[in-house]
């Protein structure tokens, strides 16, 4: 009995079709890993370049201010490091979210949480352009590890597993097999286990190697996520092989088994997630961007109409910020008009953006529940979450960015609004952005439901599959159990 898997492995290794399937899958997995790694490298390069440019820019301004204060240079009309409305008002600082655990498994574009967010006194991060990628490419979706493991791998599993017993029945060998003393059920299970290992082990190794290479510097955070993902992956693949076993137990021909299994793939991987999506979208609609834009413009136009009132209100609340010099028309506009208006705007627009973030999170929560209906959906959601695409992470980042913007404004508020000259201390004491990782319980709470859904699906399918396989007969059909 113990030798059976070894014998099955040898048989499988000898079949050219099986070898070809495994080689093709490994090639595709490697290509998916390459795409994810390339995308991540590009993002990291972009972040490094933005950070370097930010450092250089502020160091340059500070050095210019030192020169100016020492009397070695003269102040020009524009670009003065001493005037906050020239040096700081338009400046944007690059903010990064806390690193995701397994970003390399996804090349999804546009990323739901931007990898880089420019924030300054006048920025509004409510309307980011998605990127320049050809929309036709975006529609097809990325060829990444999530695509390979979620949608392609089950198809390969079904192709490898569709004839574990039905092929023998078709060739008339099933009765002979059954007469050898080993129950057909045991044969089916050992064949499936061998095929499972043949697909799971190399794929898992490629994913793990990619994660280790790309996330080496933050392995302590990535490791638990990698373990959780591998566990989910194992359960997900087990579900599909268990389905193949169940169908083989009853199918009389490979053709019927293959068609039935492909229909199941279409149902579980395409139809159910789409249906679930439609239902969830009905119960928890996505944030209405168009209404968001109209609200944005309404507030903007209203504040513009009441601009004098807004300016008066600001200086009445902060009399110490009244300008100490009479500015020119540009300064009057940017400092005494636009700046107070921006503060008033953000206060009024914040509930709209909060409602939009809430809508995203509500939808994500419902989708996680819907994952109970389809292991593909559960696995997709789990993978994307570990890749850093959960809306909760986006909200946490945007909240941190808002808080940073508040501190940034507060730091320069007095000098900017009163048009007092900046000093080196203002530059040296400027606030820096830091975002702490999500609290561990909140972070892992999100993965419980998809993992549970995968565990239940796999356990149910394996239980059902083993039960049917044990009753398998040389002729097919569960009613023939026991001969």
């Amino acid at each position, binding site marked *: 009995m113990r030798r059976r898997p070894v014998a099955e492995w040898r048989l499988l290794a000898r079949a050219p079709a099986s070898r070809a399937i495994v080689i093709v899958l490994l090639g595709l997995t490697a290509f998916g890993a390459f795409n994810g790694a390339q995308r991540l490298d590009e993002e990291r390069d972009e972040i490094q370049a933005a950070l370097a440019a930010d450092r250089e820019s502020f160091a340059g301004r500070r050095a210019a201010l030192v020169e100016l204060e020492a009397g070695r240079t003269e102040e020009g009309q524009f670009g003065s490091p001493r005037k906050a409305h020239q040096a700081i008002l338009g400046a944007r600082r690059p903010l990064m979210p806390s690193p995701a655990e397994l970003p390399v498994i996804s090349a999804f574009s546009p990323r739901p949480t931007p990898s880089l967010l420019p924030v300054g006194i006048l920025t509004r991060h409510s309307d980011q352009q998605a990127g320049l990628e050809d*929309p036709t490419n975006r529609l097809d979706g990325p060829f990444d590890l999530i695509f390979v493991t979620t949608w392609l791998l089950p198809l390969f599993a079904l192709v490898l597993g569709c004839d574990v017993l039905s092929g023998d029945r078709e060739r008339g060998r099933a009765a002979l097999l059954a007469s050898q003393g080993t129950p057909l059920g045991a044969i089916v299970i050992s064949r499936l286990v061998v095929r499972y290992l043949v697909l799971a082990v190399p794929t898992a190794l490629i994913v793990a190697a990619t994660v280790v290479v790309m996330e080496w510097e933050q392995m302590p955070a990535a490791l638990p996520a990698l373990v959780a993902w591998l566990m989910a992956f194992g359960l997900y693949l087990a579900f599909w092989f268990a389905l193949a076993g169940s169908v083989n137990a009853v199918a009389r021909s490979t053709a019927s088994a293959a068609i039935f299994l492909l229909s199941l793939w279409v149902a579980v991987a395409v139809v159910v997630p789409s249906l679930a*999506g439609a239902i969830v979208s009905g119960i928890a609609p996505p944030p209405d961007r168009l209404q968001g834009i109209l609200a944005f*413009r309404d507030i903007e136009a209203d504040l513009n109409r009441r601009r004098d009132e807004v300016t008066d209100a600001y200086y009445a609340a902060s009399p110490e910020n009244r300008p100490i010099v009479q500015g020119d028309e540009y300064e009057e506009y940017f400092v005494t008009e636009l700046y107070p208006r921006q503060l008033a705007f953000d206060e009024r627009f914040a509930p709209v953006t909060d409602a939009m973030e809430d809508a995203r999170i509500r939808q994500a929560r419902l989708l996680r529940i819907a994952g109970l209906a389809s292991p593909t959906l559960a696995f997709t959601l789990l993978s994307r979450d570990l890749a850093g695409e959960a809306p909760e992470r986006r909200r946490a980042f945007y909240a941190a960015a808002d808080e940073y913007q508040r501190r940034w404004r507060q730091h320069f508020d007095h000098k900017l609004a009163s048009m007092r000259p900046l000093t080196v201390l203002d530059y040296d004491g400027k606030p820096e952005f830091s975002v702490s990782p999500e609290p561990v319980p909140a972070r892992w709470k999100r993965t419980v439901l998809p993992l549970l859904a995968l565990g239940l699906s796999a356990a149910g399918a394996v239980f059902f599959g083993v039960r049917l396989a044990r009753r398998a007969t040389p002729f097919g059909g569960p009613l023939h159990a026991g001969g």
Partner: protein
Amino acid sequence: MFALVARRELLLQLRDGRLRVALALLLGVLIAACAAGWVQFERSMQEKGSFEDGARDQWLTQGERHPHRAAHYGTYVTMPEFGLAFFDPGLRPVAGQTLWLEAHSRPAFANVPIQDDQTLSLGPTTVSGSAVLQLLGGLLALVMGAVAVSSDRESGVLRQVLAQGCSIRNWLIGKTLGLAAILAIPLGAAGVVIIGGAVAISPESVRADAALRALFLVLGNGLLLWVLLAVGVTLSSCLRSTRVALTAALAVWIGVFVLAPRAASALAEVAAPTPTLSAYRTAVIGAFNDGFDGRGGYAAQLEALETETVQRYGVESLADLPIGFSGIRMQHMDAWSAEVDDREFARLESIYASQQRVRMTIAAFAPYIAARAVSRGLAGTDWAHYRHFLTAAERYRRNMGGQMNALIEERLAGEVWEMDGTDEDWATVSPLRYTSPSVGWALGRMATPLALLLAWATLVVGVCLTLAARRLRP
């Protein structure tokens, strides 16, 4: 003779309960997807209509402000859709739906639905009428073809038929035509829904165009199903058993429908990488500041403009000008921005074109990619249509900016900047009137995928069936 074979095949297939169930399922899913698409389309039209009205109203009633700030406040327009978008929404989920028309910047489609709606990216493809017809109809065509010949060979029917004097070639053609008649059932039903829907949903002025688009769309999908059927029949004839033929057909389906589209896009991106947004913006700013093709950057141009304007008006300095120099400056800045934008955007477009060539090269082996491009093109939801609207919107934006700059030039004198325009001034900017391109234009833009699909449907199918007739042994 083959007409007889085709009739017999049609009757036999219709008697097959499994096929009837498969057809009923396909039709059910197709109708459900079309109905969902219809509801989505209507809702989208309503939302866009009310959004555009709101944005126009906001432009008209923005109150007093500087015309240049009004140009920055700008306005919004949304991508108009043809009625056929209910069947094939194409790029809708992934391309932005709105364009913000503001001063200095070429608009870019923003507010991408897939960014906000997580339910749109749950499957390997977006579910729509066209996806159902192409993916599931394609699967049915391949499976029917793969089973057709080998099952008759294995059961001995083929031997009997040939013994009655029917040639293999005639039998094969007849059998393929009979199966094609079966596939015409879901295709015909889809045709009724598509043409009827397109005519019903389109305004009267474009109804004929919509009907023609719908007709070509049905024919395009028909060609895809025909090709897949022929491939299935060839596999069935050339491979030794139904089991092997079916496995091969499923492998073809996975390769063509699941693997090839993403692989094509990924390879296109590898072959011609799209610049990042920040790299693109840096290039635009660089060209604006530093100039190109021997022309100086903006600062040098502004200096020359100042000198030239002072000379033209015969005054001592800009402050003595009888017109508002800031209006002239803004006009020049916008014109220079437009040149820079056109240059950089043309570069981006050439990258898109290179990517399209990679996709079409792969489409030569995977007809689904070509069929999908044809379907989107006819539904008006491909990049060519988005680009057409983008060009019209950009023209409108430049004109709007020009009007605002003219106000500054007319109403001010010298170097003064501050002034206010009123709601009456904003009303002089008429709304964007956009004429959608015709079906002829659309067909012209999809020449390559159309040619590929036609080549598959004629040459490749001919070669396949000839090969099948030669290789087939009873």
